[in-house]
């Protein structure tokens, strides 16, 4: 009989470490597992038998629950291994909760189920390392995986470019600078199944001819660092990394670099500058990093989920992967629902489900019990949606049609107490704080936008100021080098257009 306790940032922030400590004083050494992603139920404690079968489960565990857990563990231990579940004090078992069972998990298939540092089987990887790299890139093309970090650019084009650009050194860089509010899938993957990311990076390295990988991890994720460091150590001991990966002719190394609290370093050229030890300032593209990236060498830059999706693509086959989703939005996307929502967490689904489904069927409405007023999709540079847009399917194409984007898959729910004028002001303010300062429209436009809105109270912004705001938005959109300045107008404009009553007096 084993006792599992979820150990990720959600669980820790909700007190799992005190629970673990209390269990240890009873002589019980719990096994730490990743989170299933049902954040509102954390911390989760499970009793599993030696065949890994779930016997009993406790959710929202606090130190006060420990005596009951210990008692149940002792009594099930006496009954032996094969007996059916004795009792289930949980409100609903995590792994049988519809929030979990209705998902389609390819990237997060092992998260929560297996301990994060348990070495998985690498048969797939061994097979791939026997294949022609071009065949792997062809598989990526068939799968039509699009970058999960925000831009949605077809991954195989980058892979082919890196592979076809002659150089003495090539790199794979994993962008783990997940700074968007409302997103945590990268963090959960690194904490819950770090080997999935390592495997994806090795495949990407082999296919493109890169021998050195870097993970640029944001400093706000210390738990992810803990798990990554330990997983990399195990990977080197098990010859999964280093010279002759799994006894093949291919060698690959991975190193972690910790960022220093700059949101802009999630932009790839800025990230590469930072990785070189410099100010994380944006660079003009072209050349794209796939041709001249880190130290001017061909560099494949992908976010965590894009790389972690790769093993799943070849596990089920690129054709089968392309069948998932809708049209050119193929495969699964780990959506994250958060903010003012009853059931927040990670929802991996094929593209094509609607915002409504995520907010109501999975999220179960607001945490406050008040009506949902808006959902911001795609992080701080994403659009605020009005209720009439909630039936939009979550695909790259359908979202683009309503002037929104899926971004990194984060949906932040707001109830009817939200003030969209404040949110628009904040969008400018965030741009001001995080701008790298290179482009004038971003550096100064953001300040000007914030000040212009701040001089008025809500529902009382004068019409001329709204014209100035629109002009600012246009300049920022057209004249900024990167998405920071270029996309700040999206939340601002969507707020003004869809919720004018928060800006101007009602007629």
């Amino acid at each position: 009989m084993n006792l599992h306790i979820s150990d990720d940032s959600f669980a820790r922030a909700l007190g799992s470490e005190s629970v673990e400590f209390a269990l240890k004083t009873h002589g019980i050494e719990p096994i730490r597992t990743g989170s299933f992603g049902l954040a509102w139920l954390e911390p989760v404690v499970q009793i599993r038998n030696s065949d890994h079968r779930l016997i009993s489960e406790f959710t929202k565990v606090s130190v006060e629950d420990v005596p009951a857990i210990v008692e149940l563990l002792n009594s099930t231990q006496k009954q032996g291994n094969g007996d059916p579940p004795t009792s289930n004090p949980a409100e609903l078992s995590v792994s049988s909760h519809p929030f979990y069972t209705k998902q389609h998990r390819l990237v997060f298939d092992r998260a929560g189920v297996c301990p994060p540092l348990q070495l998985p089987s690498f048969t797939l990887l061994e097979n791939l390392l026997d294949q022609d790299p071009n065949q792997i890139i062809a598989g990526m093309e068939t799968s039509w995986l699009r970058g999960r970090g925000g831009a949605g650019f077809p991954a195989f084009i980058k892979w082919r470019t890196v592979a076809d650009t002659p150089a003495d050194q090539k790199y794979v860089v994993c962008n783990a600078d997940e700074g968007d509010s409302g997103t945590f899938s990268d963090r959960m993957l690194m904490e819950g199944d770090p080997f999935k990311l390592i495997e994806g990076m090795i495949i990407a390295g082999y296919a493109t001819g890169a021998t050195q990988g870097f993970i640029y991890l944001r400093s706000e994720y210390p738990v992810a660092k803990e798990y990554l460091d330990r997983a990399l150590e195990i990977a080197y001991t098990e010859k999964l990394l280093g010279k002759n990966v799994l006894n093949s002719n291919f060698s690959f190394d991975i190193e972690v670099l910790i960022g220093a609290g700059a949101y802009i370093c999630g932009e790839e050229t800025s990230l590469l500058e930072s990785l070189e030890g410099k100010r994380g300032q944006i660079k003009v593209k072209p050349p794209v990093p796939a041709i001249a990236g880190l130290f001017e060498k061909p560099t494949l830059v992908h976010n965590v989920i894009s790389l972690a999706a790769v093993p799943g693509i070849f596990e089920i086959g690129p054709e089968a992967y392309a069948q998932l989703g809708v049209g050119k939005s193929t495969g699964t996307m780990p959506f994250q629902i958060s903010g003012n929502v009853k059931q927040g967490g990670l929802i991996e689904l094929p593209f094509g489900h609607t915002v409504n489904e995520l907010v109501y069927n999975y999220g179960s409405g607001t945490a406050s019990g008040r009506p949902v007023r808006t959902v911001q999709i795609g992080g701080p540079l994403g659009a605020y949606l009005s209720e009439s847009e909630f039936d939009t399917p979550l695909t790259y194409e359908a979202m683009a049609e309503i002037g929104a984007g899926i971004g990194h898959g984060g949906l932040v729910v707001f109830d009817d107490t939200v003030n969209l004028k404040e949110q628009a002001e904040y969008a400018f303010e965030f741009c001001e704080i995080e701008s790298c300062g290179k482009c004038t429209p971003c550096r100064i436009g953001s300040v000007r936008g914030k000040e212009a809105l701040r001089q008025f109270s809500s529902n009382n912004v004068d019409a001329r100021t709204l014209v100035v705001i629109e002009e600012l938005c246009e300049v920022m959109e057209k004249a900024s080098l990167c998405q920071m300045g270029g996309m700040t107008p999206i939340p601002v404009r969507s707020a003004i257009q869809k919720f004018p009553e928060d800006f101007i007096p009602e007629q």
Partner: protein
Amino acid sequence: MLKRVREDQSKSGSSPSDRHSELTRFVDRVGGLMHALNWLKEEYGYVDASWIPTLADVFNISQAEVRGVISFYHDFKLKPPAVHTIKICQAEACQSLGARQLTKDIEAKFGTNLGSRTSDNRVELEAIYCLGLCAVGPSVQVDDRLIARATPDSVSLSIE
């Protein structure tokens, strides 16, 4: 874990050559200066200005360049931290769960404002933009501890 060193770095005993040898291990690493600055942050809680000439020397760049890198990143500070640092998430997901009010309440509780510290140097309040706990906000980080569904009470309890 942050080793909070109370002594004034500029007057501490380490000689220039000690400092050199502490930093040389970062020189050949990719992103060496970032590694070195992160190490100083972990070790002392901040980057004392007296390290800048050594950093410039070791990495063979100008002091201006070192300062440029330090000033670019929110995490690198030239001033020692207060005894406790409370970072309150100001981003959208936490806003939707009352982070603006929570910030005001914490400011009132400790008698200082976001971006400032108490006069006895016990507590400083900082803004942070997303701890990745957006489904269980509002989120606060007190020193190395993460706090979900934070309240002024849960925050002040974690300091005592």
